[in-house]
């Protein structure tokens, strides 16, 4: 079961994860990661922009790679665009599999690719204005683990 979405409104990860698990009867494990806008770093808001003709098709290709690489029964991949406040969810990835390793690794793989190999651009508003966020060296190192 595959559920890939781009959302431009706030969402509640819990409301997606329950139905996703229900939609994969017979699973042995579910692994879920939820990324949120960090609070406390002087960040007042975060904005994610995307390029519609590439972003959602790219997420589907990423799902294809995950299904090809791991023993998966289902994959949920939900990513926000637009302006978010600290504490709001940005991304939710959940994988269902017969055994834990496939589910855990698939979530790790998908998150590393969403961070630095998907068509999103992120900027933060701090007290002195908007700042574009470049991928960190660690993000590229994380991605290279899957080569």
């Amino acid at each position, binding site marked *: 079961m595959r559920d890939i979405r781009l959302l431009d409104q706030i969402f509640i990860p819990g409301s997606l994860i329950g139905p996703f698990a229900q939609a994969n009867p017979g699973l042995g494990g579910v692994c879920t990661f939820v*990324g949120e806008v960090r609070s406390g770093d002087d960040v007042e808001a975060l904005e*994610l*922009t995307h*390029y519609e*003709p*590439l972003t959602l098709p790219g997420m589907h290709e990423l799902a294809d790679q995950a299904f090809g690489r791991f023993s998966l029964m289902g994959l949920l991949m939900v*990513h926000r665009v637009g302006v978010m406040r600290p504490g709001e969810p*940005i*991304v939710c990835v959940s994988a269902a599999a017969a055994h834990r390793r496939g589910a855990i690794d698939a979530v790790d793989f998908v*998150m590393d690719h*969403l*961070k*630095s*190999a*998907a*068509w*999103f*651009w*992120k*900027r933060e508003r701090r007290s002195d204005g908007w700042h*574009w*966020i*470049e*991928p960190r060296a660690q*993000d590229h190192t994380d991605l290279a683990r899957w080569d």
Partner: protein
Amino acid sequence: MVTVLFLGPLADIAGVAELELPAPMNWAALIGAVNSETADQLREDRVKVACGGRVLSDKRLLNAADGDEVALLPPVSGG
């Protein structure tokens, strides 16, 4: 005409989010139509170019036809 979109931080550097340029438009025409700072960015390998919804494997072979949308794609950061 060709619609050129400047994504992410490129819009700030170019000073515009979108340009309409005459078709056909190749790489030299694109470089000639933007400010020098943007041109420097576009020449960097880390900036990708999509035409008609497909990322070009060699952006220097860009050849946009009338009605095409060209997207200039700087390094991404999601998640």
